[in-house]
């Protein structure tokens, strides 16, 4: 809800593999979460609690944080197209036109689409513009931990920006707060947060891949592709549903994910997936609180998963929580932290 002052941000606690470097890139942004960057370089950052949207700009060699919107309702999702910033609030999509020329005096937003459910639980959205620029993809999460949801919920949808028709992309997705398109196949990949209160080790959050229309990833009947729900799984089979490509870990809260499309990191990082694990809230021993790296083979099978950035938690005490990742034009990577209200930059040099 507030941001840590620079002097209280222990950037030196963050650990990365040899050759990589972490620095504090921007701060003073309470609850900084989802990120999108414009071709001109402005970084827009959405939030879940304070109702703010931030812009980070470089001016005369200095980085400056501007709060460009206040009082929105959980403006977690951000996307950018043709000079316009799109913001996903809890139950509507709005647009700020010609925003970069008006960062100090932003125009009133235009409502793009507001026929969305108003449930608070899992109502905040992650949003991503499709590679062809015609659609906004976002999720409508399930309105509870575990319930037989209406068909409108526990889905990933896409909004056609020309016709304003909303289509379902994938069903049975409890709550996805991170998605990206594969840089080669352009398939949608997404993270999914699993249900609570089974036990400390189950079920896993998952990484998933959309390869066809009308895929159903199992919620609320089957979790992680192979675990029938203790309440709603009776008489069902996991064979009815599509499987994840990776079990990421129980309760880790896998949020923002991106394919690595830069050239700065070593060659083996090309087209890897980076995932921000926000960290568990109700596991006996806390887990997550890191950024993981997932490597794929040419067919898209997972070959490796390892921790890439850690150090947000010492024992059971955390000072920050990673929420999203973003690959910059120069190939370095940004990681937002919604507890510290800050953004870190990770770079590589030989």
């Amino acid at each position, binding site marked *: *809800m*507030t941001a840590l002052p620079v002097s209280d941000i222990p950037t030196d606690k963050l650990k990365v593999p040899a050759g990589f470097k972490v620095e504090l890139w921007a701060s003073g942004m309470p609850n900084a979460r989802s990120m999108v960057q414009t071709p001109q370089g402005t970084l827009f950052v959405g939030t*879940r*609690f*304070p*109702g703010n949207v931030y812009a980070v700009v470089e001016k005369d060699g200095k980085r400056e944080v501007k709060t460009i919107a206040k*009082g929105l309702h959980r403006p977690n999702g951000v996307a950018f197209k043709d000079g316009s910033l799109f913001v996903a609030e809890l139950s509507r999509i709005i647009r700020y036109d010609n925003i970069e020329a008006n960062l100090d005096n932003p125009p009133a937003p235009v409502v793009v689409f507001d026929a969305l459910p*108003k*449930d*608070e*639980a*899992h*109502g*905040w959205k992650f949003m991503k513009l499709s590679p062809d620029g015609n659609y906004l993809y976002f999720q409508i999460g399930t*309105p*509870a*931990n575990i*319930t037989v949801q209406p068909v409108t919920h526990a889905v990933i949808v896409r909004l056609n920006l020309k016709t304003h028709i909303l289509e379902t992309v994938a069903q049975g997705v409890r709550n996805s707060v991170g998605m990206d398109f594969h840089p080669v196949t352009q398939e949608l990949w997404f993270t999914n947060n699993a249900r*609570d*209160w089974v036990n400390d080790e189950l079920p896993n959050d998952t990484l998933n891949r959309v390869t066809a229309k009308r895929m159903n990833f199992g919620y609320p009947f089957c979790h992680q592709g192979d675990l029938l729900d203790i309440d709603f799984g009776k008489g069902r089979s996991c064979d009815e549903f599509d499987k994840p490509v990776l079990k990421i870990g129980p309760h880790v809260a896998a949020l923002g994910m991106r394919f690595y499309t830069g050239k700065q990191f070593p060659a083996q990082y090309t087209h890897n997936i980076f995932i921000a694990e926000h960290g568990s*809230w*109700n596991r006996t021993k806390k887990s997550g609180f890191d950024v993981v790296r997932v490597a794929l083979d040419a067919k898209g099978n997972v070959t490796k998963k390892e921790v890439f950035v850690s150090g947000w938690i010492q024992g059971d005490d955390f000072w920050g929580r990673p929420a999203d990742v973003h690959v910059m034009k120069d190939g370095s990577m940004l990681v937002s932290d919604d507890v510290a209200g800050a953004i870190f930059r990770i770079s590589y040099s030989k």
Partner: protein
Amino acid sequence: MTLTRISKAIQGVAFFLTVLSCSHAGAAPDALAGKVKAQACAACHGEGGVSSLPGFPHLAAQPQLSIFYQLLQFRDQRRKGGGMEAIAATLSEQDMRDIAAYYAALQAPAPVAGGSAEKITHGQQIAQQQYCSSCHGAQLQGQKHVPRLAGQSSEYFVSQLRNLRSGARADMDGTMSSAARSLTDEEIEAMAVYARSLP
């Protein structure tokens, strides 16, 4: 020691104290300053943070962060009620931290034994089914930004869970609206009686 030297020594001490107090200004929450700033709060929340008005929350022994966060939400009009939006709008964030520190340090409200033992047990069962203790603590004593429920006014407890259920009160992250959606009025009342019975 000459007078000049004494006066220099006093100046030195004064300077040292000034440096000390400056280094703390605007930083750590100050419960003593909070006590002064919280004088107006007592009209509704009671002297010592235990309210005698039904429906108003006891603030004594609430975790510091939970009071601070609620004040922020009132200020930003994301939570409404009891005229708190207008009051919070007059407070700086330092005021809020100080007031929160003051209430956090006060003695917890005494448990209320009223209500049948059967109802208390029922309330405890519902609270277990709903995993309340995983965030609110084993004795519902609260932690970090999560409020203390032990000893809380049952009228307040009932009204807030109903508001979370209906959506009239927006919670921080959806956890409480998710938890409250399937509760019946009778279950909420049983949990309220259980919570107020805890020390």
